[in-house]
């Protein structure tokens, strides 16, 4: 008998457990099993209302304006009859303790939104607000400079800029970079280029500390006359690597930053008037090949060394792609320039040139690859610098712009988005009524 009583006690205990469990483990109402996504519905409703900026216009109007009535009619027409809503516009004010949201106007079709509601916020800007970004000019913070020379010589030819012309590249570079410089000068012919090499400014710009971008790829324009003469433009053997040496000297003299946008720097010299019958061995007339001796001579000139003819090939073709450095990726976002993050480098420079020619790398555009630098800014210990992109053709001038901006780091001054009176926050809260 005892056993039976015990069993009944157990049954009572389990029954109690079941009742208690059933009491607390309440299953949700069917609506919660398959809820309507009210948040998304609210967001898409606001987007539809603002499709032609009607919502943006209305929320900046006085609270008694007729457009609020029209907005309410449109809102009521948009939503299914079983949806109740509350739309509130907040004035966004910037105070000393941060941003404050002050309720401005509210419209609703019910006293309460039921036991469960969802809300979505939507920031709108006044139509009379303009958002401006003012870039800092390169050279404003340091001593002088701030000039950008873009070589756009009509009497020179380019190489490895396949698909573009030097002129089109120059125009694109102008658009990309001119806002960041005090003065941008398009060097329209080799004679003008000769003038700035001689230290004569073309438009009253500051020559010292300028940036010179060579848009001719592996070729470089050479002025006729003085710069084509013996021991300035060509050596006693008639080789134009001497001109590249002189360029290196000028870069050092004026503390320029020389920019090579693609391929092997200074591999050819070009002047259609000077070399009408010479071609670069690939059928492009108006240029002569100086081969790798050109860049070696440039480095010697930059480093203040004496001229010697050295035609040693110093670049390497890398088998794997090269990737933008973390620094370059950061500045992609900062300046809004987005080239492809990995590239093919067939003319990467060796890192040993830094020790040989007293250089230091101030900006890595691409991550170094086993002692080879596919894109970097090299600054000389005394004066002068150069940016070399040892990529294969065709050039992406966004990389040039990115490299320069990453090195000079001009700041961008943006106007405040949530400045007082220019922005309003609209919150649409939705609830469901009726049914379960």
């Amino acid at each position, binding site marked *: *008998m*005892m*056993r*039976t009583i*015990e*069993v*009944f006690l*157990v*049954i009572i205990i*389990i*029954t109690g457990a*079941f009742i208690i*469990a*059933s009491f607390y*483990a309440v*299953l*949700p109402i069917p609506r919660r*099993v*398959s*809820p*309507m*996504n009210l948040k*998304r*519905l609210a967001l*898409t*409703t606001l*987007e*539809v*209302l*603002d*499709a*032609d900026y*009607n*919502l943006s216009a*209305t929320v900046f109007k006085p609270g008694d304006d007729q*457009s609020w*009535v*029209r*907005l309410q*009619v*449109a809102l*009521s*027409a*948009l*939503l*299914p*009859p079983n*949806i109740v809503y509350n739309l509130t516009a907040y004035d966004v004010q910037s105070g000393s303790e941060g941003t404050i949201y002050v309720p401005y106007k509210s419209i609703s079709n019910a006293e309460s939104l039921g036991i469960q509601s969802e809300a979505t916020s939507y920031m709108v800007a006044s139509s009379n607000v303009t958002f401006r970004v003012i870039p800092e000019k390169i050279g404003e913070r340091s001593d002088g400079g701030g000039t950008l020379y873009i070589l756009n010589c009509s009497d020179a030819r380019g190489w490895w800029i396949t698909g573009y012309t030097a002129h089109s590249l120059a125009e694109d570079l102008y658009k990309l970079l001119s806002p960041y410089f005090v003065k941008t000068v398009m060097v329209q012919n080799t004679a003008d280029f000769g003038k700035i090499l001689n230290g004569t400014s073309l438009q009253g710009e500051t020559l010292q500390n300028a940036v010179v971008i060579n848009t001719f790829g592996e070729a470089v324009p050479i002025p006729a006359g003085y710069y084509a003469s013996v021991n300035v433009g060509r050596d006693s053997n008639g080789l134009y690597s001497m001109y590249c040496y002189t360029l290196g000297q000028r870069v050092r003299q004026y503390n320029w930053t020389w920019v090579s946008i693609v391929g092997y720097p200074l591999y050819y010299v070009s002047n259609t008037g000077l070399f009408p019958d010479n071609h670069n061995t690939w059928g492009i007339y108006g240029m002569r090949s100086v081969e790798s001796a050109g860049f070696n001579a440039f480095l010697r000139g930059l480093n203040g060394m004496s001229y010697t003819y050295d035609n040693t090939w110093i670049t390497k073709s890398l088998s794997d792609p090269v990737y933008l450095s973390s620094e370059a990726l950061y500045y992609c976002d900062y300046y809004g320039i987005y080239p492809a993050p990995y590239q093919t480098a067939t003319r990467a420079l060796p890192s040993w040139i830094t020790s040989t020619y007293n250089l230091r790398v101030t900006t890595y555009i691409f991550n170094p690859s086993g002692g080879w630098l596919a894109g970097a800014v090299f600054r000389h210990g005394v004066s002068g610098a150069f940016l070399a992109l040892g990529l294969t053709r065709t050039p992406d001038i966004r990389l040039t712009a990115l490299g320069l901006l990453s090195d000079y780091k001009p700041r961008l001054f943006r106007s405040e988005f949530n400045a007082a009176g220019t922005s309003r926050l609209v919150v649409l809260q939705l609830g469901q009524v009726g049914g379960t």
Partner: protein
Amino acid sequence: MAGSTIDHMIAMTVFIGALLIFISLFNQTIQTAVLYQRNRAVATKCSDLLDNMLLNPGIPANWSRMESLQLEGFGLQDPEFTQYRLSPFSLMRLQSSIGEPVYYRGTNQWYSNTTMGFGDFLLVSSAKALNYSYVAKLLGINNTYGFQLSISPIVMVSIRETHAGNPLTLTISVTGKGFPLSNSVVSYCFFTVVEKGDQSSPSYNVKFGTVYTDNTGVAVLNFEDVGATKSYALIVYAHLSGLVGVGYHQRVSADKRYVIPLVESFEDKRVILAHSYDVHYFGPPESAVFFNATFVLLSEDFTLREMPMENSTGKIGKVNYGKGEKFEYANITIPTYNPGILVVTYQSNNEYGVILMPWGISAMAFPVVFGEDPSGKEWVATDIRQVLVGNVAYQVKLALWSLEGYGVMG
């Protein structure tokens, strides 16, 4: 001793019985909870799938304008916009689930049918429209989920003829999902067919104008000098605070012999006009139908604008009823990729009429229903979004259910 054994036996029997009852009771609760979780997973999938369809244009992005329908990804977003803006042409290329497909012997093809009644045609070659099973495969849900996608305009514009002629009075009623659109702006375009006699294509007169709805969302239009037998078509766009709706209405005197537009090529923007008897496969030879076509689009200031078509587009011509294996149809080239309405006035045996066809689903706010019928399914989760299709406000509803019974875990 025997008493103790009996006590044990009774106790054991009662205990086992009670245990089985409790296991069954607890099991029922657990089953319900598991079912709840699974149904909730279907609901979550429904919301995700809907966003997936609406927030990407598909691969390739401009598939709605391409001749080939070899897609790598399905999406309905307008590739020229972001957010919930759908392409009016992508929606045109979904095979309708509600309209009976139409067979036309002239091209030996079936046409997906989204027609909204006599004179308001939308027939798209089935070979150029996506079918349900292909889309399910592209979405990666074939054999796991079934769905129906419904896209319906939010603003309903209905037009009723309240006086047949001299003056012709038309009452326009504009309502939203839950409310009439009071004080909305209604811009209209009114076509009347100019009768030119037998054996010639009719011409047309067009009037444009703007009126406002009253507090009940109703506007009235009166047209003097329009007789009770005159054929006409009225197209209206109503808009208020960003909400845009479309309505249309026509009256014809020729409802047996008319032209039927069939969308043949999206890449070439080519529509063919077939004799109605060839499509409906009626018996004896019938008279030719003469037609005159034009194109109307909604400009950015919400007014309607006629976009005249060149003669080279085939805007004027005639189609004969096919005899034997010979079928005659006319080709028309739509002049633009902007959504608009093809308006074709026609005449046959001195009977006249107007037919309309949207170029881009939004131009006439046609609804689209795509997919399987959800009625009778075990558990159907639904979700809705408000979207814009070519500036016209639509509501998109997705109904989703599991095809794997209770085994689906999301």
